C-alpha cells in the first residue's frame, strides 16, 4: 500500500500539467473563438497528445493508448483542476462507443465513432418503456423488416436528452415469436426521421430532465443494426454495466457529504450552529463512515483494475452503497434546512441566510430518490449481489419465466 503516486506517474502528471498550462484556456487567436470552438480545438490537441479518447483506435479518431487506470485518474484529476474540456460527456461516448468498438460493423465504427468522440454527434438511449422498467426483456417496441428498412413502432421513456440528440441507440423487438430476451435487436435510429415524436417527461422536481419518445412507422436502414438480429440483449448488456459504474461514483458521495458538513456549519439550530448539536455530530460522523468506506472501496477497485485484476464483489456494491448514502445525506439535509422544506426546489425560503443552497437541498432530496430508481431499482441491485455475487440460487418464479 502506498497512497502516493510512483515517480513514473508523478512525471506523467507533471507533463500533463505542462500540456494543460500551455493549451487551456487557449491563448492568442484561440482566445477569440467561442467556447464550443475552443473546446473542439483543444480536444483535438488532447487526443493527439494521448490524454483523451485513449481507448479508441486511431483509425476511428482516438489516441489508442494502453489502458492504465492510474493515468486515467490523473488525467481526470488534472483536467478537473484546470477546468479543461476532457472526454466528451454523454451517453454516446460513454455507452455507445464502447459497444460499437466491441460489437459494431466496420462501417458503423468509421461513421459513428469519430464524430461522437469529438462531440459533434449526440446520442440518446432507447431502452426503458412504460411497461418494462427493470425488466427489459418484456419490452414492446417493434421493428419490422420491410424491404431494406426497419419500420419501428412503439414508445420509450426515461430518455435523457432525446430532444437534443442526433441519433438513438435503441432496443426493439424484431422477432415477435421469440420469447423474452431472444427476439430483441439493437438498432441505430436517426432522430430526425419522420414519425418520431419527443415529449418532455417532467419529474416531481418540476423540471423535465427526461423525455418520452413515440415511434410511428419510423424507418431506419437495414444495416443500422449492431450485432445480429435477436442478439440485442447481449449487445446491450456491456453497455448497462458501464451505466451502473457511472452512477455508483464514490466521488459524488464525498462531494455531497462535504456540502452537507458545510450546511450543518452554516445552519442555526436553537441559536447555535447546527454542527454543535451532539445529535447532528453523531449523524455526520456515522454518515462519514459510509462515505469513506465507499471512497476507499473505490481506491481498492482502482488498484485492482490497475493490476489487471478485480476487487470481486466490491464492484457490485457501488450502486447500492451510493444510493444508501444519498438517502442518509438527504434525510439529514432536509432536517437541517428546516423551513426550506416547505418550498419547491426552485423556491427561496423566507429569511434564509443561504436561500439558493437550501432550495438546492430540496432538489437533492428529491433526486436522491431518482438516483435510487435509475439504472435498476435497489431490489434489482440486491438480486444481482445475491445471485451473481454470493452465488445464491435464483427464485423459482424467475427461473420459470426465462
Amino acid at each position: 500500500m502506498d497512497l502516493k503516486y510512483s515517480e513514473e506517474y508523478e512525471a506523467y502528471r507533471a507533463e500533463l500539467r505542462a500540456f494543460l498550462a500551455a493549451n487551456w484556456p487557449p491563448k492568442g487567436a484561440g482566445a477569440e473563438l467561442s467556447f464550443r470552438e475552443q473546446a473542439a480545438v483543444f480536444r483535438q490537441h488532447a487526443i493527439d497528445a494521448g490524454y483523451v479518447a485513449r481507448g479508441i483506435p486511431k483509425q476511428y479518431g482516438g489516441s489508442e493508448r494502453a489502458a492504465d487506470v492510474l493515468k486515467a485518474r490523473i488525467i481526470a484529476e488534472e483536467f478537473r483542476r484546470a477546468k479543461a474540456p476532457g472526454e466528451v460527456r454523454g451517453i454516446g461516448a460513454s455507452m455507445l462507443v464502447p459497444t460499437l468498438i466491441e460489437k459494431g460493423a466496420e462501417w458503423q465504427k468509421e461513421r459513428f465513432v469519430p464524430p461522437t468522440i469529438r462531440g459533434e454527434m449526440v446520442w440518446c438511449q432507447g431502452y426503458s418503456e412504460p411497461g418494462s422498467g427493470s425488466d427489459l426483456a418484456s419490452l414492446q417496441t417493434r421493428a419490422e423488416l420491410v424491404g431494406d428498412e426497419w419500420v419501428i413502432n412503439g414508445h420509450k421513456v426515461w430518455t435523457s436528452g432525446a430532444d437534443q440528440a442526433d441519433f438513438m441507440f435503441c432496443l426493439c423487438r424484431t422477432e415477435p415469436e421469440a420469447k423474452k430476451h431472444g427476439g430483441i435487436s439493437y438498432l441505430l435510429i436517426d432522430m430526425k426521421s419522420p414519425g418520431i415524436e419527443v415529449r418532455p417527461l417532467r419529474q416531481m422536481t418540476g423540471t423535465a430532465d427526461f423525455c418520452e419518445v413515440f415511434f410511428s412507422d419510423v424507418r431506419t436502414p437495414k444495416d443500422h443494426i449492431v450485432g445480429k438480429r435477436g442478439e440485442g440483449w447481449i449487445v446491450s448488456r456491456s453497455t448497462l454495466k458501464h451505466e451502473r459504474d457511472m452512477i455508483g461514483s464514490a466521488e459524488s458521495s464525498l462531494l455531497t457529504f462535504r456540502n452537507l458538513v458545510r450546511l450543518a456549519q452554516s445552519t442555526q439550530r436553537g441559536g447555535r450552529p447546527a454542527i454543535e448539536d451532539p445529535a447532528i455530530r453523531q449523524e455526520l460522523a456515522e454518515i462519514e463512515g459510509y462515505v469513506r468506506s465507499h471512497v476507499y472501496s473505490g481506491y481498492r477497485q482502482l488498484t485492482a483494475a490497475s493490476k489487471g485484476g478485480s476487487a470481486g464483489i466490491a464492484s457490485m456494491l457501488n450502486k447500492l452503497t451510493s444510493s444508501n448514502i444519498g438517502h442518509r445525506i438527504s434525510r439529514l439535509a432536509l432536517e437541517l434546512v428546516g423551513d426550506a422544506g416547505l418550498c419547491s426546489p426552485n423556491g427561496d425560503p423566507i429569511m434564509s441566510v443561504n436561500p439558493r443552497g437550501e432550495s438546492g437541498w430540496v432538489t437533492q432530496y428529491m433526486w436522491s430518490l431518482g438516483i435510487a430508481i435509475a439504472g435498476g431499482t435497489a431490489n434489482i441491485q440486491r438480486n444481482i449481489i445475491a445471485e451473481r455475487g454470493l452465488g445464491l440460487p435464483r427464485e423459482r418464479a424467475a427461473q420459470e419465466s426465462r
Partner: protein
Amino acid sequence: MDFGLSEEQELLQETLRSFIARDCPPTRLREIFDADAGHDPAHWNALVEMGVAGLVIPEAYGGAGLELLDLALVAEVLGEGAFPSPFFGHSLASLAIVLGGSDAQKESWLPRLASGDVLGTIAFGEGDESWDPSAWQMRRVDEKLTGMKGYVPHANVADLIVVGLAGGELALVERSAEGVKLEAIDAVDRTRPLYKLSLDAVVAEVLAVAAASRVRDAGLVLLAADAFGSASKLVEMSVEYAKTRQQFGQVIGQFQAVKHQLADMTTAIEPARGLFWHAAYAFDHLPDEAERGAALAKAHLTDVFMQTARDAVEAHGGIGFTWESDVQIWFKRAMFDRAFLGTPPGHRERAATLAGW
C-alpha cells in the same frame, strides 16, 4: 374505557370520503394541482355545507360544538385525498377565537366563521423555524402591527388572519385592512399554498386570552392526523400498484421483497393511528398530557409519513418520480406536514423537556 370512534364520527368520515371520491377524485385533484389554483371554492362551500367550517365552534355561536378529535378525523380524511383546502388555517383561526376570544370577539367572529361567511387562517412562523410563540418578533405599537410572517396558508382567500405577536399574544387582522401585503411563496405543496405576509402599521384586535400554545398544539394534532391519513393512502396506492404492475412475467406484488417492503410500510404507519387519536383526546380531556402528546404525535407521524412517501415512490419505480404520478402530490404534502410548525427534532426535544428528562 372506549378507545374507538362513535358512530357519528365514523359517519362524518364516511360522508367526507364519499364527497371527495365524487367531487375531487385524482383527475380533479390533478387539475387543481397543475393549475396551482390552491383549492376549488366550490369544494370549500361543500365543506361548509357539511358543517366542517364550524365543527369546533360552540353551538351557541352557530357551530357544531365538537372537539379536536372530530376535527382531526376530518384532517385524516382530507389527507387521504390530498384535498386542496383552506381547512387547516380556518380551523386553527376559529380555535384561536374559541380559546382566546372575549365574549364580544366570539360574538363578532365565530358565527361568521361557522357559516363560512368569513374564511380564516393563521400567521405564526416568521422564517428560520421561528414557530414557537416565544420566538415571534411581530411588534404592536398603538394597537397597530408591524412586521413579517413567513408561511401563511391560503392567505390569498382568507378574510381574517390570526397573527402571533412578540410575547405570545394573538391578534386578528383583516386581509382587506390597510398596510396588509401578501406575496406568494413558491411552495412545494400546492394543495396548501403559502404566502408571505407583511404588515405595516395595520389595525388589529388583540385576543383576550393568550392561547397561542394551545392553538399551536391543535395545529400539531391536525398535521399528525393529516399525515396518518395521507400515509395510509400511499400504502394503499402502493399495494394496488403492486397488484397490477407486471414485471418479469408476474405482478410485482408476488415478489417477496416487494411484499415485505409493503408489510414494513404498513407496520410503520397503521399502529400510529392511535397516536393522533390520543393526542386529540388529550387536548380536550387530559390537560397534563396535551402539549407533550401533540408534540410526539406530530414528530412521529410526520416523520413516518415522509419515509412512507419515499417508500411509495420507490414502490412505484420510475413512474413514481414523475410529475404525472399522483404519488408526488402526497410526497409534497409530506414535506409540508413535516416542516410546518417546526420539524420533528424540535418537537422531540420539547417532549423530552416536558417529560422532565
